[in-house]
Each structure stands twice: as structure tokens, then as C-alpha cells.
């Protein structure tokens, strides 16, 4: 894991994406943002990351596109 500024995690439903992200966020060099686009404001995953990793800033779905377009 070099130092990519953005890590995108994909995979089939139930394969363990959120689990992998949770393990990653436990490492000391944690990134500070999390976004899970496409689920609106009722995203359970975003809420879980928010509760379990208070230092990680969860980007609301409505702002995802703006934030991502700034990266490109």
C-alpha cells in the first residue's frame, strides 16, 4: 500500500468491502474521509463507519460528486 490519495473499494454484495475498509481504518495511517455513493442519506455503511471511526469524516452522498470532481 503506497500512498495513494484515494482508495476505491469495489466488489460483489457481501464480499467484505466494509470489513476490509474497517481493517484498513484501524491502521495508524488512516485516511480521513469515507464516501459510499449512491445510497442517499439512509446508508447503513456510512453510519457504521461514522460510529466506529469518529475521526473519519463521512462525506454525505449529496456532496460526493462535488468532492470527487475536485480530485480529477
Amino acid at each position, binding site marked *: 500500500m503506497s500512498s*495513494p490519495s*484515494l482508495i476505491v*473499494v469495489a466488489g460483489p454484495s*457481501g*464480499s467484505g468491502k466494509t470489513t476490509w475498509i474497517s481493517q484498513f481504518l484501524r491502521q495508524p495511517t488512516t485516511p480521513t474521509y469515507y464516501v459510499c455513493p449512491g445510497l*442517499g442519506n439512509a446508508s*447503513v455503511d456510512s453510519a457504521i463507519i461514522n460510529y466506529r471511526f469518529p475521526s473519519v469524516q463521512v462525506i454525505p452522498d449529496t456532496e460526493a460528486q462535488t468532492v*470527487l470532481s475536485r480530485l480529477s
Partner: protein
Amino acid sequence: MELGFYLDLRSPLLTSFPCHRVAVVPPETESSPWQNFADETVTGNSVLSFESEQFPQIWNTSLTGQVFDPPSLETIWMEITSGAYGQVQRAKGLFELPDGALIQMDFVDALPGSEYRELNVPRWLEGRPNRFSGMEVVGWNLEESTIKQILLDSCLSDHALSQYQSYYKETIAS
């Protein structure tokens, strides 16, 4: 950034910026759109890939402010995950309990049982919780309105909630 299975990996939005792409795929997956997309492949849970099947639907709902009767929650979780209201491939939920705890419940069709975890957040014992809780179900032919109805049927009334909360506050105080 977490990409749900419902997003098109070829979307310009997802390919237009520099990033490190990780695919989490079931063991022994030889080729998949996720691996084609990724720089790094991680072996995850042994779930069935549904490439050849009909694309599943995804349904989610906020339950913020609702507090569950625990045995009812256990009953309906078992009913939902065992397919009483449509075939479920994945279910996850954040549920408030009357003792003020917030729990996370996870079900993956290909894995045995469900996982439960109490989240490390303050116990909410003053009225209806003002923090997110909700549920997400991925599957086929989901009876969404019935699922919503049984969720609400399992939630406590104002009266029952205040009785539970005063009981738990007394228990904690003594």
C-alpha cells in the same frame, strides 16, 4: 471510497481521478468486472457471484428515532433473512434498543448465521434517539412495504419506551 455492486465501474465519475483500486472478491474468482477494474485484489467472503442472474434490488430505510422491542427484532430479522419476504442476499442494520444501546446486525446469505455487534456509542436513555439508525436489504422480489410494516410493528410506543428508559436509568443509578 466504497463502491456498491450497483454502480457501473466504467462510469467516468469513477475513472476520471487518480486512485488506488481495490477489489474484494470471493475466493477462486478467476475473472470479474471487479478484478478488471482493480489494481489490487483482496480475497473476501465466499459469496455467490450473481453475474448470470437477475440483478438484485437494493432497499434501505432510515429508522432514526425508532427503538426496538428486542425479541420482536430477533423474530423479524430471522424472518427477513430466511426469505419470508423475498430472497435476501445481504441484510445490514443499525438498531436502537431500549437499554440505550445501538447494535449493528449483519447477514450474508452465503455465510452461516448473522453477526451482532454493539457499537461503542453513549447509551441513549432520554427520549427518542437523535442519531442515525436504519436498515438495508439486498435481494430479489423483496416485499418492501411488508418489511417496512413489520419493522414498525416491532418498534416501541412512546409509553413503552419511557417505561423502559426509567427502568434502565434506575438500574444504572443503583
